[in-house]
């Protein structure tokens, strides 16, 4: 195991009880993520990719094994691992500005510094005109920009993203993917990004880790060596896409069989 790993997942198991039986959501997961690396976790729904992300976030700790971040095992959620949720999870009673500054207020940062940081982030994410708006008045894409700004405000070295663009339309999604890449290149965060979209994983990540469906294991760890910005129509991109599709379809068909089986039992 390399000493330089920023996040190190070691022999992690996560077991749930379902109908009196042990279900392995995660089985013997070993994963090293380097500082500044952009890693996508890819898999069909139910493969445990969100479980793994939540374990790294500290919301739900592994049943066994350990997750080492910056050399120390994690025991609880913390601001050095900022999370962006699929459902945006903005506080609806706070304006855009208040949502972004919340984490800084918790850190007890001085007011002028908060204001400066908020201004900077509003500019960075093109949200200046929405400063005083409430989340209900924003589109999905705008909400996710705010959620990203909220995490960037606390300056976490690690960003955990749980299908953050899953609910967006294709164009908004691509725009936000490009913005995320721009921010990542500029700020050099370590990003662990969960998705079920092959194209998204190939478009964004340095490495794509494919997970299997029940038990959740790592099926394939694939480095994406294509230069950025990536051309989704290029032969190299499509070759990788085809490869990942096949891997994923095998898992998907097991998932489907499983659903048929449980439907038959019902």
């Amino acid at each position: 195991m390399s000493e330089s790993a920023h996040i190190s997942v070691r022999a992690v198991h996560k077991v749930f009880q379902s109908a009196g039986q042990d279900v392995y959501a995660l089985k013997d997961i070993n994963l090293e993520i380097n500082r500044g690396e952009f890693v996508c976790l890819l898999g069909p729904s139910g493969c445990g990719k969100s479980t793994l992300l939540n374990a790294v976030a500290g919301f739900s700790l592994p049943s066994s094994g350990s997750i080492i971040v910056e050399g120390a095992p994690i025991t609880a959620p913390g601001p050095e691992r900022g999370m962006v949720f699929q459902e945006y999870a903005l506080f609806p009673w706070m304006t855009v500005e208040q949502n972004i500054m919340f984490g800084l207020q918790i850190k007890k940062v001085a007011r002028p510094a908060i204001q400066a940081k908020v201004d900077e982030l509003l500019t960075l994410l093109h949200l200046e005109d929405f400063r005083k708006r409430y989340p209900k008045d924003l589109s999905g894409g705008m909400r996710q920009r705010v959620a990203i700004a909220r995490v960037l405000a606390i300056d976490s070295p690690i960003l955990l993203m749980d299908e953050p663009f899953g609910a967006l339309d294709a164009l908004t999604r691509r725009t936000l993917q490009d913005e995320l890449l721009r921010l990542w290149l500029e700020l050099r965060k370590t990003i662990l990004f969960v998705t079920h979209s092959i194209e998204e994983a190939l478009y964004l990540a340095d490495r794509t880790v494919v997970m299997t469906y029940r038990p959740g294991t790592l099926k394939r760890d694939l480095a994406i060596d294509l230069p950025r910005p990536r051309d989704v129509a290029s032969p190299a991109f499509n070759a990788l896409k085809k490869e990942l599709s096949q891997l994923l379809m095998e898992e998907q068909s097991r998932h489907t069989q499983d659903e048929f089986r449980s439907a038959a039992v019902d």
Partner: protein
Amino acid sequence: MRRYRHAASGILVPLAALAFWQLVSSMGWVNATILPSPMRVLVKWWAYLRPLEVFDPTQGSYLKWCFSGELIQDALGSLYRVLSGFVIGAGLALPLGLAMGYSRVVNGLFNPLIQVLRPIPPIAYIPLSILWFGLGNPPAVFLISIGAFFPVLMNTVTGVQTVDSIYLRVGRNLGASRLTQFTRIILPAATPYIFTGARIGMGTAFIVVIVSEMIAVNNGLGYRILEAREYLWSDKIIAGMFTIGLLGLGIDTLMSRLSSHLLKWHRGLEQG
């Protein structure tokens, strides 16, 4: 245009009811003591509203004179009792509700007692309230505070218990302390429920004030319509009832305006 049509259709049924009432009275189908005509009620209403004495500058300001009418004094008396009872009842229910919603332990301690007391209508407390507080405002305020207490309590508990856990996860992720979680996340997230409870509590308080004035005090709108009955002044009874209706509507409108203003971030109120 559409708005006018809406308003016009809204006035249709009241007008028809009024016309029918007038018809019943003019045709002499019903004894005027049992059901006075709308016109008589209106005249009585004006007399009830108007100052009793002629204006005398030595007795105080013109404004004071304007408010010296019986109806206004009664309405102010009722309003005072409603507000004091509401402040006491809601003021006790809010912290208890927050604690019960937040802590299973507190909920386990208080919930059984609350569930037994809750179905007892405030009116059932009348004998005790007189025994404990005698006559006058105190028993009335006591009854009203009971009426306001339970709706605020139950809604506050539900509001805190149903805070979406994702907000709490965000809070933990950002490093919020338990206190910050409570004041900046749980409390604001529960406000829509708390305001709903306050609005229901205010409605109950208004019902209870009328009843309490019929037993314990000698002014107020509830007292006045009971007094009018003794003299068979049915016109004054009806005038008093309409006053109660309008005042209740006014309070409710005010409450709902206030909550939509304070909850302008809330999705559910967009159409409201």
